[in-house]
């Protein structure tokens, strides 16, 4: 069980409503209990709460995951009839446009931070994405 896996588990737990998570692999067992759960749920009704994924900048993404910096609608093509910005397997260079995120009539262009290869595109064009949601796996 390498560090990356553990970090992924921790992130997954933090981003969920779960209280506890136990993970075993190759004879190793990992059990995670959320610290915040010391606060019991009040018995009274509370106002609607945001789900676990916060809009505030999330903790650093796992290496290789390229995340959306804001909540909005992702577009994988510059315009409906144009070819996609990038495709799986494609080599990219730092600064290259990967997609746009539309929010409140404004388009934010997202660019690669480093050179690499697009291993996977994790979202569909036109989909609503959360702040901090992984969009691409780039290795």
């Amino acid at each position, binding site marked *: 069980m390498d560090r990356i896996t553990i970090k992924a588990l921790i992130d997954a737990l933090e981003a969920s409503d779960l209280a506890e998570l136990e993970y075993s692999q190759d004879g190793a067992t990992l059990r995670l209990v959320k610290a915040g759960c010391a606060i019991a749920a009040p018995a009274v009704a509370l*106002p609607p709460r945001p789900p676990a994924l*916060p*809009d505030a900048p999330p903790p650093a993404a796992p290496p290789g995951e390229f995340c959306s910096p804001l*909540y909005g609608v992702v577009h994988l093509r510059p315009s409906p009839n144009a070819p996609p910005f990038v495709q799986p397997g494609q080599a990219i260079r730092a600064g290259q446009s990967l997609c746009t995120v539309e929010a*409140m*009539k*404004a388009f*934010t262009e997202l660019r690669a931070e480093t050179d690499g290869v697009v291993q996977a595109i994790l979202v569909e064009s036109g989909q*609503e994405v959360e*702040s901090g949601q992984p969009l691409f796996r780039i290795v």
Partner: protein
Amino acid sequence: MFDTVLIANRGEIALRIQRACRGLGLRTVAVYSEADADAPYLQAADQALCIGPPAPGQSYLNQAAILFAAKISGAQAIHPGYGFLSENAGFAARVEAAGLVFVGPSAECIRTMGDKVAAKRAMRTAGVPCVPGPDQALPSGPAAIHAIADAIGYPVIVKAAGGGGGRGMRVVHEPATLIDALAVTREEARRAFGNAEVYIEKFLSHPRHVEIQVLADSHGNALWLGSRDCSLQRRNQKVVEEAPAPGIPVAQVAAVGERCAEACRQIGYCGVGTFEFLYENDAFYFIEMNTRLQVEHPVTEMTTGIDIVQQQLRVARGERLSLHQADIVCTGHAIECRLNAEDPRSFAPAPGWITDWVLPGGFSVRVDSHAGAGYRVSPYYDSMFAKLIVHGATRADALDRMRLALAEMQVGGIATNLALHREIMDDSGFTAGGVDIHHLERWLAARAVA
């Protein structure tokens, strides 16, 4: 007359209209996109109908869906709010054709005022002062066009007749570039507005944005409700508005206001509307009319004590105005801050969940907002989530009260422009009053360098 109103809008103005209807005992039908399905104001409506997916084109701009919602809900009137379909003459005509009441002026009035050249002609006829320049389609020959520009005097501005709100225009500083600028603007206008007609006006370099609120019934009565100053803008978007416009003689405002009311009578205008002017070197120059309710209407409500949206609904019902011009008194001073979900420095949009929400309160403080703790500001629409309005005995008093209200207001979970508003209220240019429409951009540029 109608007793059920469909509110063809969203957010704070949907709630504002909802409140006005409730105050008049009218039933309400709310329509919403899938993105707004959880909006709290929908609970307050007598009926709420989903009209489509989040994208405005498929919901709030979807005329067929809205008309269908009116039909199945039994609404006999449609209030378009602002933005979306509020100034769409075609939609107004379809509402009328369906035998329903469009809460606004006739399709014909909207069409006339939507064509900036026709609007200018109508205003000249009513004696409303306009920006120097012809109110006719331009001649085709270059020599005749040059003669017009020379008569106006450079710099001039080339504008699309179908434009508005700051779009479709180009400043020309010298004769050599006039004909090219005209051609480019024509082509842009044809693509953007489906109308290639352009016109030429004198370009004012440091004007204020001052506007007159009007209210007219279907019996030939029209009133003006005082002035507003909306000069504090960023990229043609108003940021802070106030009433009355500071430093302009009351008699001068009254003279222009009376011309605006007369224009309403001449064109058979019914409903609320706003005559927008540039104000430079102590003179008013008409630029366009907004044939709808405006975002900043509360500052006029605070200074006149008149519920403008209730009045709008009353005249739409065919009622005769019970107010007379002599009853309209502008008392004290009101200021409105538009609170947006955006980074206060970069202006990057910041939709998201609101986690903390503390409103200011007490004497003379008004908040118009559909948001609250647990509300998620949508990425699909405008970034404005609240309007904060205060009234004071004087402008200085109103500024003090706005500073206090801004200090009390707390919004957590999203980035907002609250900090920007707090800075603006301490800016010596703004607090002195009467800045031009470039002031805020200049101030932001200076701040960015500092």
